[in-house]
Protein backbone atom coordinates (compact mmCIF):
# COMPACT_ATOMS: atom_id res chain seq x y z
CA UNK A 1 0.00 0.00 0.00
CA UNK A 2 2.73 2.43 1.01
CA UNK A 3 4.67 1.44 -2.10
CA UNK A 4 1.67 2.32 -4.21
CA UNK A 5 1.46 5.75 -2.59
CA UNK A 6 5.18 6.31 -3.07
CA UNK A 7 4.90 5.52 -6.78
CA UNK A 8 2.51 8.40 -7.04
CA UNK A 9 5.21 10.99 -6.26
CA UNK A 10 7.58 10.48 -9.24
CA UNK A 11 4.66 10.23 -11.65
CA UNK A 12 3.23 13.47 -10.33
CA UNK A 13 6.61 15.23 -10.54
CA UNK A 14 7.29 13.86 -14.03
CA UNK A 15 3.90 14.85 -15.43
CA UNK A 16 4.02 18.34 -13.96
CA UNK A 17 7.58 18.87 -15.15
CA UNK A 18 6.57 17.83 -18.65
CA UNK A 19 3.73 20.34 -18.69
CA UNK A 20 5.91 22.98 -17.09
CA UNK A 21 8.69 22.53 -19.64
CA UNK A 22 6.23 22.59 -22.53
CA UNK A 23 4.39 25.68 -21.39
CA UNK A 24 7.50 27.70 -20.76
CA UNK A 25 8.88 26.77 -24.15
CA UNK A 26 6.08 28.80 -25.73
CA UNK A 27 7.84 31.08 -28.18
CA UNK A 28 7.33 34.76 -27.60
CA UNK A 29 8.08 36.95 -24.64
CA UNK A 30 5.05 37.29 -22.37
CA UNK A 31 6.69 40.08 -20.36
CA UNK A 32 7.33 42.21 -23.41
CA UNK A 33 3.81 41.52 -24.63
CA UNK A 34 2.49 43.12 -21.42
CA UNK A 35 3.48 46.58 -22.53
CA UNK A 36 1.93 46.30 -25.96
CA UNK A 37 3.46 48.29 -28.79
CA UNK A 38 5.52 50.63 -26.65
CA UNK A 39 8.88 49.16 -25.66
CA UNK A 40 9.36 48.56 -21.97
CA UNK A 41 12.40 50.04 -20.15
CA UNK A 42 15.09 47.38 -19.74
CA UNK A 43 15.13 47.83 -15.97
CA UNK A 44 11.39 47.22 -15.68
CA UNK A 45 11.67 44.14 -17.87
CA UNK A 46 14.49 42.75 -15.73
CA UNK A 47 12.59 43.44 -12.53
CA UNK A 48 9.52 41.66 -13.88
CA UNK A 49 11.55 38.70 -15.10
CA UNK A 50 13.15 38.41 -11.68
CA UNK A 51 9.76 38.59 -10.01
CA UNK A 52 8.41 35.67 -12.05
CA UNK A 53 11.73 33.77 -11.91
CA UNK A 54 11.95 33.94 -15.69
CA UNK A 55 15.64 34.88 -15.53
CA UNK A 56 16.59 31.54 -13.99
CA UNK A 57 17.23 28.26 -15.83
CA UNK A 58 14.21 26.02 -16.44
CA UNK A 59 15.01 23.39 -13.82
CA UNK A 60 15.41 26.03 -11.15
CA UNK A 61 12.13 27.66 -12.14
CA UNK A 62 10.48 24.27 -11.86
CA UNK A 63 12.04 23.59 -8.48
CA UNK A 64 10.87 26.93 -7.10
CA UNK A 65 7.45 26.29 -8.56
CA UNK A 66 7.01 22.85 -7.01
CA UNK A 67 8.26 24.13 -3.69
CA UNK A 68 5.50 26.74 -3.91
CA UNK A 69 2.82 24.23 -4.96
CA UNK A 70 3.61 22.00 -1.99
CA UNK A 71 2.95 25.00 0.24
CA UNK A 72 -0.27 25.77 -1.60
CA UNK A 73 1.19 28.62 -3.64
CA UNK A 74 0.55 28.25 -7.37
CA UNK A 75 2.12 31.61 -8.27
CA UNK A 76 0.31 34.54 -9.82
CA UNK A 77 -0.62 35.54 -13.33
CA UNK A 78 0.89 38.50 -15.14
CA UNK A 79 -1.78 40.81 -13.83
CA UNK A 80 -0.83 39.95 -10.28
CA UNK A 81 -3.81 37.74 -9.49
CA UNK A 82 -3.10 34.66 -7.42
CA UNK A 83 -3.62 31.51 -9.49
CA UNK A 84 -5.18 29.87 -6.43
CA UNK A 85 -7.81 32.64 -6.41
CA UNK A 86 -8.64 32.00 -10.06
CA UNK A 87 -8.87 28.31 -9.37
CA UNK A 88 -10.91 28.68 -6.18
CA UNK A 89 -13.44 30.70 -8.13
CA UNK A 90 -13.78 28.11 -10.88
CA UNK A 91 -13.29 24.74 -9.22
CA UNK A 92 -16.85 24.61 -7.80
CA UNK A 93 -18.33 24.99 -11.30
CA UNK A 94 -16.20 22.24 -12.86
CA UNK A 95 -16.58 20.05 -9.79
CA UNK A 96 -20.37 20.29 -9.83
CA UNK A 97 -20.46 19.65 -13.57
CA UNK A 98 -18.21 16.61 -13.25
CA UNK A 99 -20.16 15.24 -10.27
CA UNK A 100 -23.56 15.57 -11.96
CA UNK A 101 -22.13 13.94 -15.08
CA UNK A 102 -20.58 11.20 -12.96
CA UNK A 103 -23.82 10.47 -11.10
CA UNK A 104 -25.76 10.42 -14.37
CA UNK A 105 -23.38 8.03 -16.11
CA UNK A 106 -22.94 5.68 -13.15
CA UNK A 107 -26.66 5.27 -12.43
CA UNK A 108 -27.93 4.97 -15.99
CA UNK A 109 -24.81 3.21 -17.30
CA UNK A 110 -24.78 0.43 -14.71
CA UNK A 111 -28.56 -0.03 -14.92
CA UNK A 112 -28.43 -0.38 -18.70
CA UNK A 113 -25.44 -2.69 -18.43
CA UNK A 114 -27.23 -4.97 -15.96
CA UNK A 115 -30.37 -5.17 -18.08
CA UNK A 116 -28.28 -6.02 -21.15
CA UNK A 117 -25.91 -8.40 -19.41
CA UNK A 118 -28.63 -10.52 -17.80
CA UNK A 119 -30.16 -11.41 -21.14
CA UNK A 120 -27.24 -11.52 -23.50
CA UNK A 121 -28.44 -11.61 -27.10
CA UNK A 122 -31.91 -10.40 -26.20
CA UNK A 123 -33.70 -7.32 -27.42
CA UNK A 124 -32.51 -5.01 -24.66
CA UNK A 125 -28.97 -6.31 -25.08
CA UNK A 126 -28.88 -5.49 -28.76
CA UNK A 127 -30.53 -2.14 -28.13
CA UNK A 128 -27.90 -1.26 -25.54
CA UNK A 129 -25.04 -2.51 -27.73
CA UNK A 130 -26.02 -0.48 -30.77
CA UNK A 131 -27.13 2.65 -28.96
CA UNK A 132 -23.95 2.82 -26.89
CA UNK A 133 -21.84 2.49 -30.04
CA UNK A 134 -23.81 5.32 -31.62
CA UNK A 135 -23.30 7.52 -28.56
CA UNK A 136 -19.57 6.74 -28.46
CA UNK A 137 -19.26 7.63 -32.14
CA UNK A 138 -20.78 11.09 -31.90
CA UNK A 139 -18.03 13.51 -30.88
CA UNK A 140 -18.88 15.44 -27.75
CA UNK A 141 -18.94 18.82 -29.49
CA UNK A 142 -21.38 17.60 -32.14
CA UNK A 143 -23.57 16.10 -29.42
CA UNK A 144 -23.32 19.30 -27.40
CA UNK A 145 -24.46 21.53 -30.25
CA UNK A 146 -27.25 19.15 -31.19
CA UNK A 147 -28.53 19.09 -27.62
CA UNK A 148 -28.27 22.85 -27.41
CA UNK A 149 -30.08 23.36 -30.68
CA UNK A 150 -32.90 20.87 -30.16
CA UNK A 151 -33.54 20.59 -26.42
CA UNK A 152 -32.43 24.07 -25.49
CA UNK A 153 -33.44 26.34 -28.33
CA UNK A 154 -36.05 24.62 -30.46
CA UNK A 155 -38.02 22.97 -27.65
CA UNK A 156 -36.87 25.32 -24.91
CA UNK A 157 -36.81 22.70 -22.15
CA UNK A 158 -33.54 23.59 -20.49
CA UNK A 159 -31.17 26.54 -20.31
CA UNK A 160 -28.31 26.36 -22.82
CA UNK A 161 -25.78 28.91 -21.69
CA UNK A 162 -24.22 30.28 -18.55
CA UNK A 163 -25.14 29.59 -14.95
CA UNK A 164 -28.20 31.81 -14.59
CA UNK A 165 -30.61 29.04 -13.57
CA UNK A 166 -28.63 27.27 -10.85
CA UNK A 167 -29.00 23.50 -10.95
CA UNK A 168 -31.02 23.55 -14.15
CA UNK A 169 -28.09 25.15 -15.98
CA UNK A 170 -26.00 22.11 -15.26
CA UNK A 171 -28.43 19.43 -16.50
CA UNK A 172 -27.76 19.61 -20.22
CA UNK A 173 -23.96 20.06 -20.00
CA UNK A 174 -23.71 17.21 -17.49
CA UNK A 175 -25.69 14.86 -19.73
CA UNK A 176 -23.53 15.76 -22.72
CA UNK A 177 -20.31 15.41 -20.73
CA UNK A 178 -21.31 12.10 -19.19
CA UNK A 179 -22.83 10.48 -22.26
CA UNK A 180 -19.68 8.91 -23.72
CA UNK A 181 -18.59 7.47 -20.40
CA UNK A 182 -22.12 6.26 -19.81
CA UNK A 183 -21.86 4.18 -22.96
CA UNK A 184 -18.52 2.71 -21.88
CA UNK A 185 -19.85 1.91 -18.40
CA UNK A 186 -22.90 0.17 -19.85
CA UNK A 187 -20.73 -1.93 -22.17
CA UNK A 188 -18.24 -2.83 -19.48
CA UNK A 189 -20.96 -3.83 -17.03
CA UNK A 190 -22.71 -5.85 -19.70
CA UNK A 191 -19.64 -7.84 -20.78
CA UNK A 192 -18.44 -8.42 -17.29
CA UNK A 193 -21.83 -9.41 -15.85
CA UNK A 194 -22.62 -11.74 -18.75
CA UNK A 195 -19.31 -13.48 -18.17
CA UNK A 196 -19.78 -13.78 -14.43
CA UNK A 197 -23.31 -15.13 -14.77
CA UNK A 198 -21.78 -18.25 -16.29
CA UNK A 199 -19.27 -18.67 -13.47
CA UNK A 200 -19.43 -21.64 -11.13
CA UNK A 201 -20.02 -19.61 -8.01
CA UNK A 202 -23.15 -18.10 -9.54
CA UNK A 203 -24.46 -21.56 -10.36
CA UNK A 204 -23.71 -22.62 -6.79
CA UNK A 205 -25.52 -19.62 -5.39
CA UNK A 206 -28.55 -20.37 -7.56
CA UNK A 207 -28.39 -24.07 -6.69
CA UNK A 208 -28.49 -23.45 -2.98
CA UNK A 209 -31.80 -21.69 -3.48
CA UNK A 210 -30.94 -18.01 -3.20
CA UNK A 211 -33.33 -15.53 -4.70
CA UNK A 212 -32.33 -14.30 -8.14
CA UNK A 213 -32.10 -10.74 -6.93
CA UNK A 214 -29.56 -11.84 -4.33
CA UNK A 215 -27.58 -13.95 -6.79
CA UNK A 216 -27.32 -11.08 -9.21
CA UNK A 217 -27.16 -8.19 -6.79
CA UNK A 218 -24.70 -9.60 -4.30
CA UNK A 219 -22.76 -12.45 -5.87
CA UNK A 220 -22.44 -11.66 -9.56
CA UNK A 221 -22.54 -7.88 -9.43
CA UNK A 222 -19.83 -7.49 -6.85
CA UNK A 223 -17.33 -9.23 -9.07
CA UNK A 224 -18.66 -7.70 -12.25
CA UNK A 225 -18.18 -4.16 -11.03
CA UNK A 226 -14.42 -4.47 -10.56
CA UNK A 227 -13.51 -3.52 -14.16
CA UNK A 228 -16.19 -0.83 -14.03
CA UNK A 229 -14.56 0.70 -10.98
CA UNK A 230 -11.16 0.69 -12.67
CA UNK A 231 -12.74 2.59 -15.48
CA UNK A 232 -14.43 5.06 -13.13
CA UNK A 233 -11.05 5.91 -11.60
CA UNK A 234 -9.64 6.87 -14.98
CA UNK A 235 -12.88 8.52 -15.94
CA UNK A 236 -13.15 10.92 -13.01
CA UNK A 237 -9.90 12.51 -14.14
CA UNK A 238 -10.87 12.65 -17.78
CA UNK A 239 -14.28 14.15 -16.98
CA UNK A 240 -12.46 17.11 -15.51
CA UNK A 241 -10.23 17.34 -18.58
CA UNK A 242 -13.12 16.73 -20.96
CA UNK A 243 -14.95 19.63 -19.40
CA UNK A 244 -12.93 21.98 -21.64
CA UNK A 245 -15.18 21.38 -24.63
CA UNK A 246 -18.44 21.12 -22.70
CA UNK A 247 -17.74 24.28 -20.72
CA UNK A 248 -16.87 26.05 -23.93
CA UNK A 249 -20.10 25.07 -25.68
CA UNK A 250 -22.38 25.81 -22.74
CA UNK A 251 -20.41 28.85 -21.65
CA UNK A 252 -19.82 27.73 -18.07
CA UNK A 253 -17.14 29.65 -16.15
CA UNK A 254 -15.19 26.56 -15.04
CA UNK A 255 -11.58 25.41 -15.01
CA UNK A 256 -11.67 24.10 -18.57
CA UNK A 257 -12.79 27.46 -19.84
CA UNK A 258 -10.07 29.20 -17.84
CA UNK A 259 -7.27 26.92 -19.00
CA UNK A 260 -8.24 27.32 -22.63
CA UNK A 261 -8.24 31.09 -22.37
CA UNK A 262 -4.93 31.00 -20.49
CA UNK A 263 -3.29 28.98 -23.28
CA UNK A 264 -4.41 31.51 -25.85
CA UNK A 265 -3.22 34.45 -23.71
CA UNK A 266 0.09 32.73 -22.85
CA UNK A 267 -0.60 32.93 -19.13
CA UNK A 268 1.92 30.20 -18.34
CA UNK A 269 1.40 30.05 -14.60
CA UNK A 270 -2.37 29.72 -14.96
CA UNK A 271 -2.03 26.91 -17.52
CA UNK A 272 0.48 25.01 -15.44
CA UNK A 273 -1.52 25.56 -12.26
CA UNK A 274 -4.77 24.25 -13.66
CA UNK A 275 -3.17 21.35 -15.51
CA UNK A 276 -1.31 20.43 -12.34
CA UNK A 277 -4.64 20.38 -10.57
CA UNK A 278 -6.16 18.13 -13.24
CA UNK A 279 -3.20 15.74 -13.05
CA UNK A 280 -3.51 15.67 -9.27
CA UNK A 281 -7.21 14.81 -9.43
CA UNK A 282 -6.54 12.11 -12.01
CA UNK A 283 -3.76 10.48 -10.00
CA UNK A 284 -5.68 10.69 -6.73
CA UNK A 285 -8.77 9.09 -8.22
CA UNK A 286 -6.61 6.28 -9.57
CA UNK A 287 -5.09 5.84 -6.15
CA UNK A 288 -8.54 5.70 -4.62
CA UNK A 289 -9.57 3.01 -7.08
CA UNK A 290 -6.57 0.88 -6.19
CA UNK A 291 -7.58 1.06 -2.54
CA UNK A 292 -11.21 0.25 -3.38
CA UNK A 293 -10.02 -2.80 -5.29
CA UNK A 294 -8.74 -4.46 -2.19
CA UNK A 295 -12.09 -3.87 -0.50
CA UNK A 296 -14.08 -5.34 -3.40
CA UNK A 297 -11.77 -8.20 -4.21
CA UNK A 298 -10.08 -9.69 -1.16
CA UNK A 299 -7.80 -11.71 -3.44
CA UNK A 300 -5.91 -8.51 -4.20
CA UNK A 301 -3.48 -7.62 -1.46
CA UNK A 302 -0.84 -4.97 -1.25
CA UNK A 303 2.32 -5.96 0.48
Amino acid at each position, binding site marked *: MIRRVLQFVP*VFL*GATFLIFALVFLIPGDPIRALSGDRPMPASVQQALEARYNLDKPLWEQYFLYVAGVVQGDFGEDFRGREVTDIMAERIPVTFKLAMYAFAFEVVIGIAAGIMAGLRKGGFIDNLVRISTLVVISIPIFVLG*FMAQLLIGVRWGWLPVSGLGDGFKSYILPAIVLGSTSLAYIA*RLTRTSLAENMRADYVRTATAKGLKRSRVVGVHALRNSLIPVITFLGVDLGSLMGGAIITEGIFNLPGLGNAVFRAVVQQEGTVVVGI*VTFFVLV*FLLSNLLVDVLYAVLDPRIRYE
Partner: protein
Amino acid sequence: MSDFRQAEAVTETETVATPVTEEVEEEVQKPTEGPPPGATTSLWSDAWKELRSSPLFLVSLGLVVLFIVMAIVPQLFTSADPRACSLSNSLDRPSSEHWFGFDLQGCDYYARTIYGARISMAIGVSVIAFAAILAVILGSISGYYGGWLDSVIARLTDIWFAIPTILGGIVILSLLGERGFFQVSFVLVILGWPTMLRLYRASVLAVKEMDYVEAARALGASDFRILFKHILPNAITPVIIYAAISVGVIIAAEAALSFLGVGLQLPAISWGLMISGAQTRILQAPHLLLFPGLLLSLAVFGFILMGDSLRDALDPKGR
Protein backbone atom coordinates in the same frame (compact mmCIF):
# COMPACT_ATOMS: atom_id res chain seq x y z
CA MET B 1 -12.69 14.83 -25.73
CA SER B 2 -11.92 12.18 -23.25
CA ASP B 3 -12.82 9.18 -25.41
CA PHE B 4 -9.23 8.36 -26.07
CA ARG B 5 -8.48 7.36 -22.55
CA GLN B 6 -11.83 5.71 -22.17
CA ALA B 7 -11.48 3.55 -25.22
CA GLU B 8 -8.22 2.32 -23.89
CA ALA B 9 -9.67 1.50 -20.51
CA VAL B 10 -12.28 -0.61 -22.20
CA THR B 11 -10.05 -2.40 -24.65
CA GLU B 12 -7.44 -3.01 -22.04
CA THR B 13 -9.74 -4.85 -19.71
CA GLU B 14 -11.54 -6.70 -22.41
CA THR B 15 -8.73 -7.84 -24.65
CA VAL B 16 -5.68 -8.55 -22.57
CA ALA B 17 -6.75 -12.15 -22.23
CA THR B 18 -6.74 -12.74 -25.99
CA PRO B 19 -3.15 -13.94 -26.53
CA VAL B 20 -3.58 -16.60 -23.90
CA THR B 21 -6.75 -17.94 -25.40
CA GLU B 22 -5.10 -17.92 -28.78
CA GLU B 23 -2.47 -20.27 -27.47
CA VAL B 24 -5.15 -22.58 -26.24
CA GLU B 25 -6.44 -22.83 -29.78
CA GLU B 26 -3.00 -23.59 -31.12
CA GLU B 27 -2.51 -26.29 -28.57
CA VAL B 28 -5.83 -27.81 -29.49
CA GLN B 29 -4.64 -28.02 -33.05
CA LYS B 30 -1.46 -29.89 -32.25
CA PRO B 31 -2.99 -33.34 -31.68
CA THR B 32 -4.62 -33.30 -35.10
CA GLU B 33 -1.26 -33.82 -36.77
CA GLY B 34 -0.76 -32.56 -40.26
CA PRO B 35 -3.98 -31.06 -41.53
CA PRO B 36 -3.68 -30.62 -45.32
CA PRO B 37 -2.00 -27.31 -46.22
CA GLY B 38 -4.51 -24.54 -46.66
CA ALA B 39 -7.10 -26.22 -44.50
CA THR B 40 -5.65 -25.08 -41.18
CA THR B 41 -8.21 -23.47 -38.94
CA SER B 42 -6.20 -20.72 -37.32
CA LEU B 43 -7.74 -18.17 -35.02
CA TRP B 44 -7.91 -15.68 -37.86
CA SER B 45 -9.59 -17.97 -40.35
CA ASP B 46 -12.09 -18.97 -37.67
CA ALA B 47 -12.68 -15.34 -36.95
CA TRP B 48 -13.08 -14.54 -40.62
CA LYS B 49 -15.71 -17.23 -40.98
CA GLU B 50 -17.63 -15.70 -38.11
CA LEU B 51 -17.13 -12.15 -39.32
CA ARG B 52 -18.44 -12.87 -42.82
CA SER B 53 -21.83 -13.72 -41.39
CA SER B 54 -21.96 -10.89 -38.84
CA PRO B 55 -24.18 -8.08 -40.10
CA LEU B 56 -22.55 -5.56 -37.77
CA PHE B 57 -19.12 -6.34 -39.16
CA LEU B 58 -20.36 -6.05 -42.73
CA VAL B 59 -21.91 -2.67 -41.97
CA SER B 60 -18.65 -1.48 -40.44
CA LEU B 61 -16.63 -2.83 -43.36
CA GLY B 62 -18.94 -1.03 -45.77
CA LEU B 63 -18.54 2.26 -43.88
CA VAL B 64 -14.76 1.97 -43.61
CA VAL B 65 -14.39 1.14 -47.31
CA LEU B 66 -16.75 3.98 -48.20
CA PHE B 67 -14.69 6.51 -46.28
CA ILE B 68 -11.39 5.18 -47.62
CA VAL B 69 -12.66 5.53 -51.19
CA MET B 70 -14.03 8.98 -50.32
CA ALA B 71 -10.60 10.00 -49.02
CA ILE B 72 -8.69 8.73 -52.03
CA VAL B 73 -11.02 9.68 -54.90
CA PRO B 74 -13.54 12.28 -53.71
CA GLN B 75 -14.25 13.02 -57.39
CA LEU B 76 -16.32 9.83 -57.50
CA PHE B 77 -18.84 11.38 -55.15
CA THR B 78 -19.01 14.94 -56.37
CA SER B 79 -18.15 16.82 -59.50
CA ALA B 80 -18.22 20.20 -57.75
CA ASP B 81 -15.01 21.91 -56.74
CA PRO B 82 -14.96 22.53 -52.95
CA ARG B 83 -12.86 25.66 -53.43
CA ALA B 84 -14.96 27.23 -56.19
CA CYS B 85 -17.23 29.49 -54.20
CA SER B 86 -19.59 32.29 -55.00
CA LEU B 87 -20.63 34.70 -52.28
CA SER B 88 -24.05 35.10 -53.83
CA ASN B 89 -24.85 31.59 -52.55
CA SER B 90 -23.74 32.36 -48.99
CA LEU B 91 -25.58 30.24 -46.38
CA ASP B 92 -28.16 28.94 -48.87
CA ARG B 93 -30.20 26.08 -47.46
CA PRO B 94 -29.97 22.54 -48.89
CA SER B 95 -31.79 22.06 -52.19
CA SER B 96 -32.30 19.20 -54.62
CA GLU B 97 -29.32 20.35 -56.66
CA HIS B 98 -27.04 21.16 -53.75
CA TRP B 99 -27.91 18.57 -51.15
CA PHE B 100 -25.99 20.07 -48.25
CA GLY B 101 -26.53 23.75 -49.12
CA PHE B 102 -23.76 26.36 -49.06
CA ASP B 103 -21.44 27.70 -46.38
CA LEU B 104 -20.76 31.32 -45.46
CA GLN B 105 -18.34 31.78 -48.34
CA GLY B 106 -20.87 30.28 -50.74
CA CYS B 107 -18.94 27.07 -51.32
CA ASP B 108 -20.84 23.91 -52.18
CA TYR B 109 -21.13 22.26 -48.77
CA TYR B 110 -21.62 18.74 -50.10
CA ALA B 111 -18.32 18.92 -51.99
CA ARG B 112 -16.54 20.33 -48.95
CA THR B 113 -17.93 17.67 -46.66
CA ILE B 114 -16.85 14.91 -49.06
CA TYR B 115 -13.38 16.37 -49.45
CA GLY B 116 -13.15 16.71 -45.66
CA ALA B 117 -12.83 12.92 -45.39
CA ARG B 118 -9.32 12.96 -46.81
CA ILE B 119 -7.42 14.65 -44.02
CA SER B 120 -9.39 12.97 -41.24
CA MET B 121 -8.72 9.51 -42.66
CA ALA B 122 -5.08 10.33 -43.38
CA ILE B 123 -4.50 11.52 -39.83
CA GLY B 124 -6.45 8.66 -38.26
CA VAL B 125 -4.65 5.94 -40.18
CA SER B 126 -1.12 7.34 -40.05
CA VAL B 127 -1.27 8.22 -36.36
CA ILE B 128 -2.35 4.70 -35.48
CA ALA B 129 0.22 3.13 -37.81
CA PHE B 130 3.05 5.10 -36.21
CA ALA B 131 1.80 4.53 -32.68
CA ALA B 132 1.52 0.80 -33.39
CA ILE B 133 5.06 0.59 -34.74
CA LEU B 134 6.36 2.47 -31.71
CA ALA B 135 4.32 0.24 -29.41
CA VAL B 136 5.60 -2.97 -30.99
CA ILE B 137 9.25 -1.92 -30.85
CA LEU B 138 9.19 -0.49 -27.33
CA GLY B 139 6.74 -3.11 -26.06
CA SER B 140 8.99 -5.91 -27.34
CA ILE B 141 12.01 -4.47 -25.58
CA SER B 142 10.06 -3.75 -22.44
CA GLY B 143 8.14 -7.01 -22.20
CA TYR B 144 10.79 -9.40 -23.48
CA TYR B 145 13.90 -8.15 -21.76
CA GLY B 146 12.36 -6.62 -18.65
CA GLY B 147 14.87 -5.16 -16.22
CA TRP B 148 15.67 -1.49 -15.77
CA LEU B 149 14.68 -0.60 -19.32
CA ASP B 150 11.21 -1.97 -18.62
CA SER B 151 10.95 0.11 -15.46
CA VAL B 152 12.03 3.27 -17.25
CA ILE B 153 9.51 2.72 -20.06
CA ALA B 154 6.76 1.85 -17.56
CA ARG B 155 7.34 5.04 -15.55
CA LEU B 156 7.41 7.11 -18.75
CA THR B 157 4.06 5.71 -19.85
CA ASP B 158 2.66 6.37 -16.37
CA ILE B 159 3.69 9.99 -16.71
CA TRP B 160 2.22 10.44 -20.19
CA PHE B 161 -0.90 8.66 -19.08
CA ALA B 162 -1.50 11.20 -16.32
CA ILE B 163 -1.82 14.07 -18.80
CA PRO B 164 -5.34 14.41 -20.20
CA THR B 165 -5.25 13.94 -23.98
CA ILE B 166 -7.14 16.99 -25.15
CA LEU B 167 -5.47 19.19 -22.57
CA GLY B 168 -2.02 17.96 -23.57
CA GLY B 169 -2.95 18.45 -27.21
CA ILE B 170 -4.04 22.03 -26.59
CA VAL B 171 -0.88 22.89 -24.68
CA ILE B 172 1.54 21.36 -27.21
CA LEU B 173 -0.28 22.48 -30.35
CA SER B 174 -0.63 26.04 -29.15
CA LEU B 175 3.18 26.18 -29.10
CA LEU B 176 3.35 25.48 -32.82
CA GLY B 177 2.80 28.45 -35.08
CA GLU B 178 1.88 26.50 -38.16
CA ARG B 179 -0.32 23.47 -37.70
CA GLY B 180 -0.91 21.12 -40.58
CA PHE B 181 -1.17 17.40 -41.11
CA PHE B 182 2.29 16.63 -39.70
CA GLN B 183 2.07 18.71 -36.56
CA VAL B 184 -1.37 17.44 -35.58
CA SER B 185 -0.43 13.82 -36.34
CA PHE B 186 2.79 14.14 -34.38
CA VAL B 187 0.99 15.42 -31.29
CA LEU B 188 -1.65 12.70 -31.49
CA VAL B 189 1.05 10.03 -31.83
CA ILE B 190 2.97 11.20 -28.79
CA LEU B 191 -0.22 11.40 -26.75
CA GLY B 192 -1.52 8.06 -28.04
CA TRP B 193 1.42 5.66 -27.91
CA PRO B 194 1.45 4.75 -24.21
CA THR B 195 -1.78 2.75 -24.30
CA MET B 196 -0.79 0.61 -27.25
CA LEU B 197 2.59 0.07 -25.67
CA ARG B 198 0.97 -1.15 -22.46
CA LEU B 199 -1.33 -3.46 -24.37
CA TYR B 200 1.47 -4.96 -26.42
CA ARG B 201 3.81 -5.28 -23.46
CA ALA B 202 1.20 -7.20 -21.45
CA SER B 203 0.62 -9.41 -24.44
CA VAL B 204 4.35 -10.08 -24.93
CA LEU B 205 4.67 -10.96 -21.25
CA ALA B 206 1.98 -13.62 -21.63
CA VAL B 207 3.28 -15.04 -24.90
CA LYS B 208 6.99 -15.20 -24.05
CA GLU B 209 6.34 -17.90 -21.45
CA MET B 210 4.90 -20.22 -24.10
CA ASP B 211 6.59 -23.52 -24.90
CA TYR B 212 7.13 -22.73 -28.54
CA VAL B 213 9.13 -19.63 -27.62
CA GLU B 214 11.23 -21.80 -25.37
CA ALA B 215 11.61 -24.30 -28.23
CA ALA B 216 12.72 -21.61 -30.66
CA ARG B 217 15.29 -20.41 -28.16
CA ALA B 218 16.55 -23.96 -27.64
CA LEU B 219 16.98 -24.26 -31.39
CA GLY B 220 19.24 -21.25 -31.26
CA ALA B 221 16.97 -18.61 -32.78
CA SER B 222 18.14 -15.05 -32.25
CA ASP B 223 16.18 -12.67 -30.03
CA PHE B 224 15.20 -10.71 -33.09
CA ARG B 225 13.79 -13.80 -34.78
CA ILE B 226 11.94 -14.89 -31.66
CA LEU B 227 10.44 -11.44 -31.17
CA PHE B 228 9.22 -10.89 -34.70
CA LYS B 229 8.66 -14.39 -36.02
CA HIS B 230 7.24 -16.13 -32.96
CA ILE B 231 5.99 -13.56 -30.48
CA LEU B 232 4.67 -10.82 -32.78
CA PRO B 233 2.04 -12.89 -34.67
CA ASN B 234 0.70 -14.28 -31.40
CA ALA B 235 0.80 -11.10 -29.37
CA ILE B 236 -0.51 -8.57 -31.86
CA THR B 237 -4.24 -9.37 -31.69
CA PRO B 238 -5.17 -6.96 -28.86
CA VAL B 239 -3.22 -4.21 -30.59
CA ILE B 240 -5.10 -4.79 -33.86
CA ILE B 241 -8.47 -4.63 -32.12
CA TYR B 242 -7.46 -1.51 -30.25
CA ALA B 243 -6.05 0.03 -33.44
CA ALA B 244 -9.35 -0.36 -35.30
CA ILE B 245 -11.21 1.41 -32.50
CA SER B 246 -8.49 4.04 -32.14
CA VAL B 247 -8.59 5.17 -35.75
CA GLY B 248 -12.13 6.33 -34.94
CA VAL B 249 -11.05 7.89 -31.67
CA ILE B 250 -8.15 9.73 -33.34
CA ILE B 251 -10.45 11.07 -36.07
CA ALA B 252 -12.71 12.42 -33.34
CA ALA B 253 -9.74 13.87 -31.42
CA GLU B 254 -8.41 15.63 -34.51
CA ALA B 255 -11.84 17.11 -35.15
CA ALA B 256 -12.06 18.24 -31.52
CA LEU B 257 -8.67 19.96 -31.66
CA SER B 258 -9.48 21.64 -34.97
CA PHE B 259 -12.83 22.64 -33.53
CA LEU B 260 -11.08 24.28 -30.58
CA GLY B 261 -8.85 26.21 -32.97
CA VAL B 262 -5.58 24.49 -32.09
CA GLY B 263 -5.70 21.78 -34.75
CA LEU B 264 -5.70 22.16 -38.51
CA GLN B 265 -5.89 25.67 -39.92
CA LEU B 266 -7.78 27.16 -42.84
CA PRO B 267 -7.66 26.77 -45.80
CA ALA B 268 -7.53 23.06 -44.93
CA ILE B 269 -10.86 21.33 -45.51
CA SER B 270 -11.62 19.43 -42.31
CA TRP B 271 -14.81 18.41 -40.53
CA GLY B 272 -13.59 19.87 -37.24
CA LEU B 273 -12.96 23.25 -38.87
CA MET B 274 -16.33 23.16 -40.62
CA ILE B 275 -18.14 22.50 -37.34
CA SER B 276 -16.10 25.20 -35.67
CA GLY B 277 -17.20 27.65 -38.36
CA ALA B 278 -20.80 26.54 -37.96
CA GLN B 279 -21.03 27.17 -34.24
CA THR B 280 -21.68 30.89 -34.41
CA ARG B 281 -24.50 30.41 -36.96
CA ILE B 282 -26.12 27.43 -35.34
CA LEU B 283 -29.62 28.97 -35.43
CA GLN B 284 -29.39 30.66 -38.79
CA ALA B 285 -27.83 27.75 -40.67
CA PRO B 286 -28.05 24.46 -38.74
CA HIS B 287 -27.15 22.52 -41.89
CA LEU B 288 -23.57 23.75 -41.52
CA LEU B 289 -23.35 21.80 -38.28
CA LEU B 290 -25.48 18.82 -39.24
CA PHE B 291 -23.69 17.47 -42.32
CA PRO B 292 -20.03 17.47 -41.26
CA GLY B 293 -21.17 16.27 -37.83
CA LEU B 294 -23.06 13.41 -39.44
CA LEU B 295 -20.17 12.28 -41.64
CA LEU B 296 -17.68 12.64 -38.82
CA SER B 297 -19.87 10.50 -36.56
CA LEU B 298 -20.39 7.91 -39.28
CA ALA B 299 -16.65 7.58 -39.90
CA VAL B 300 -15.95 7.20 -36.19
CA PHE B 301 -18.85 4.75 -35.90
CA GLY B 302 -17.47 2.61 -38.75
CA PHE B 303 -14.09 2.12 -37.11
CA ILE B 304 -15.40 1.61 -33.58
CA LEU B 305 -17.96 -0.92 -34.81
CA MET B 306 -15.24 -2.73 -36.74
CA GLY B 307 -13.02 -2.98 -33.67
CA ASP B 308 -15.98 -4.14 -31.64
CA SER B 309 -16.93 -6.95 -34.01
CA LEU B 310 -13.28 -7.95 -34.42
CA ARG B 311 -13.05 -8.34 -30.68
CA ASP B 312 -16.18 -10.45 -30.54
CA ALA B 313 -14.81 -12.73 -33.25
CA LEU B 314 -11.25 -12.97 -31.94
CA ASP B 315 -12.04 -13.37 -28.27
CA PRO B 316 -13.40 -16.89 -27.87
CA LYS B 317 -14.49 -16.09 -24.31
CA GLY B 318 -17.60 -14.40 -25.61
CA ARG B 319 -18.76 -17.39 -27.70
